[in-house]
C-alpha cells in the first residue's frame, strides 16, 4: 500500500499550520477528528466547508462522517461569530434564577433569536448549556468573561455599549 500523503494546506494562512500541527501530533489518526475540529474552531472562530473538507481529507475520514460530527456537537459552529458575543447560560441554576428573562430581553433588544448574529455582524447572541459557575447564577459570558448574578439592565447596558462601537 502506498504511503498516505496528506493534502496540501488550503492557503498560505498561517492558521492552517496550527491545524496541521494538531493532526501531525496525533499521527493523522482518524480518532483525532474532534481534536482537530476544536483546533480549527479556536483558530478561525468557526468551521466552514473548506476547513471540514480539508480535515476530512487529511484524516481519511468520509466527509459525511466529519459533517455528522460537526453538526452533532453543539460546541461547533458553522457560522462566523460576530465581533462581540454575549452568551447567556441556560443551565438549571440559571433558569431557576431567571435566565429566560435575560434571553427574552436580549432577543428583543437585538432583534434576533438566540444563536444568531446581528445583521451588521456586531453582536452574536448565544446560549450555553452550563458553564459551571452555577453558584453565581444567572451567569452571562461577555466575550468569554464570566459575569455572575447578572441583572437585565446591566446586560442591556453592555449590549448598548457594543452596539455603538
Amino acid at each position, binding site marked *: 500500500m502506498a504511503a498516505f500523503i496528506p493534502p496540501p494546506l488550503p492557503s498560505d494562512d498561517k492558521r492552517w499550520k496550527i491545524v496541521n500541527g494538531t493532526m501531525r501530533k496525533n499521527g493523522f489518526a482518524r480518532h483525532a477528528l474532534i481534536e482537530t*475540529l476544536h483546533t480549527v474552531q479556536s483558530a478561525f472562530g468557526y468551521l466552514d466547508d473548506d476547513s471540514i473538507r480539508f480535515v476530512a481529507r487529511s484524516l481519511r*475520514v468520509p466527509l459525511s462522517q466529519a459533517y455528522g460530527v460537526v453538526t452533532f*456537537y453543539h460546541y461547533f459552529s458553522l457560522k462566523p461569530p460576530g465581533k462581540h458575543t454575549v452568551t447567556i447560560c441556560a443551565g438549571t441554576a440559571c433558569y431557576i434564577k431567571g435566565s429566560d428573562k435575560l434571553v427574552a430581553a436580549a432577543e428583543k433588544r437585538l432583534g434576533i433569536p438566540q444563536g444568531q448574529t446581528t445583521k451588521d455582524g456586531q453582536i452574536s447572541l448565544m446560549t450555553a448549556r452550563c458553564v459551571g459557575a452555577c*453558584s453565581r447564577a444567572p451567569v452571562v459570558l461577555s466575550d468569554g468573561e464570566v459575569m455572575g448574578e447578572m441583572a437585565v439592565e446591566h446586560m442591556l447596558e453592555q449590549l448598548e455599549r457594543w452596539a455603538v462601537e
Partner: protein
Amino acid sequence: MTIEELEQIAKSVSQENAKYDFEVNVCMDLACMSQGSDRLREALEKAANATGANVLVRRTGCMGPCSSGPLVRVDPEEILYHHVNADHAEAIVASLGGTPVPDLQCDLNEHFDRQVRVVLENAGHIDPEKIDDYISRDGYKALLTALTEMTPSGVIHRITESGLRGRGGGGYPTGLKWGTVAKAGGDLKYVVCNGDEGDPGAFMDRSVMEGDPHRVIEGMALAAYAVGASKGYIYVRAEYPVAVSRLTTAIREARRRGLLGNSICNTPFNFDVEIRLGAGAFVCGEETALLASIEGRRGAPRTRPPYPAVSGLWGKPTLLNNVETYANIAPIIRNGGKWFADMGSERSKGTKVFALTGKITNTGLVEVPMGIKLREIIEVIGGGVPGGHTFKAVQTGGPSGGCIPAEMLDLGVSYDALMAVGSIMGSGGMIVMDDTSCMVNVAKFFVDFCRSESCGKCVPCRAGTAQMFTLLTRICDGSGTMDDLELLVSLCETIKETSLCGLGMTAPNPVLSTIKYFKNEYIEHIVHKRCPAGVCNMEAPAAVGVPNEVLA
C-alpha cells in the same frame, strides 16, 4: 521517583513554607475569579511586598461557599474573609498577626462544621498548578506505596472493602467494576476518566479538576495499576477551559517528576494520560457514547452488553469512572478501606460532594457524609431559603433526577433512598427551588433539555421527549386537558422502559416526580387555567408549529 524522594520533596516544601510567618490563601476558582480574585491576589502580593511582611500569597482551588466570594483564608490562624476585593488587600496585610479585619470576617462555622472533607481535603490549601504542594499533602504517596508494596489484586481488594460506589450517579460498586476489567483478557487496556459534567447546574467535577488535578491523575494511575492498563484518557468538557489548562499543567509536571511515563518508581509499571475534549453533548456522559466520542465519532450510545469493561475503547477492555470516584481512590489506599467504610450509611459509604445552587443562601460546594439528612444540608449548611420565601422542592440528579418536596426533607442522602423517592443521586447537583418556581414549568425545562440533547438513535427517546414536551407546553399555556396528563404519565412509563440508554430511561423522572408530589399544580394549570407561582403565561396563544415539527 521513589518514596524517599517523595518525602524529601514534601519536607522541602514544608521547610519552605515554614519560612513565612503567614499564608494568605486566595480562592481562584471560576466563581471567585469572576468577582476579581485575580486582581485581589496581585494587590495582596503588592501590599505584602510593600510592607516587607513575611507572607506567602497562594492561589488555591474552590474553598466552598462561592456566594461569599471572593474568599481569602489566612493561615495559620485560619481566619476566613468574605466578599474581599482588591481595595481590602492593604488592610488584610496590615492586620496579620494582630486583630483580624472585622468587616470582612465571616462566620461560616455552621456551614463548615457539618462537612467532612475527603475529596475536597486539599481544596483551598494547595496551589493547583504546583505538584510539590500536592506532594506535601501526602500526594502520590498512595501510588508509590501501591506500586512497591501492594499487588494489583490487593488494590482492588482495598477498594472493594471500602464500599465505594460510582460517583457519576449510577452508583455501581467501584471494586466490582475494577475486578471485571482486571479479569478481562488482552494485554492492552484503557483507563478513562469521565469529566464530561453535563448536568446543567452542577460543577463538582470542574472544581476538583481545577482545584486538585493531581488527585484525579493519581486515582487514574492507581486504577491503571490495579486493572493492568497503561494508557489513560481524561474526557473533559470544552466549556471548562480552566480545568483543561490546569490538567494539562498537572500532566506535564507529573511526567517531569517521573510519576507518569515508563517504569514509574523503578517498577515495570508504565502509565500515561491524555486529555480529550468534549464538544457539548449531554449524552456523552453515557459511557458508550463517551467512548465513541474519544474515538472521534458522534456520541451515540450503543447497546450493552458487551460492557466497556470487556469491550470498550477500540474494542479493548476499558475502565470508566467519574472524576469524583477517582478523587476518592488515593485517600482510600492511604487510609485503608475500613476508614472509608466507617463513613456514610449502610449501603452508601464515604462522602459526597454536592453543588448547592438555586434559591439558597450559601451557594457553593459542600462535602457531606452519606446518610446526612437533606434538611441539614439545606437549612444548616446551606443557610436556608433567602428573601422570606418558602422552600418548595430540591432537585437532585439534574435532567435525570427528580424533585423532592418539603415533606421529605428528613430523608437521609444515599443512592437507594433517593431512588426510592423517584429521584437519583446523580453526579451531585442540588438545586433548591422556592415558591417562585412553577413545578410544571421546571418539568418542561428539563424535558426541553433532554429533547434537544437526545442523540436521535432510538425512537422512544427521540420521539418520546418531543411528545412529552408538546404535552407539557399545552399544560403550561393553559390548553391542556386531564386526558393529556394521563397520556403524559403513560408515555413516561413507555420511554422509561424502552429507551436505549440512561438519557432516555431517566428523562421522564422530572415529570413523574413533579406529577407525584405536585399534582395540584398540574391540576391548577389544567382545570383552573392558573399558574400558582405566576411563571407560566396562560394568555399567550399556543406556540405555532414548534411542538409538532419534531417527530419520529
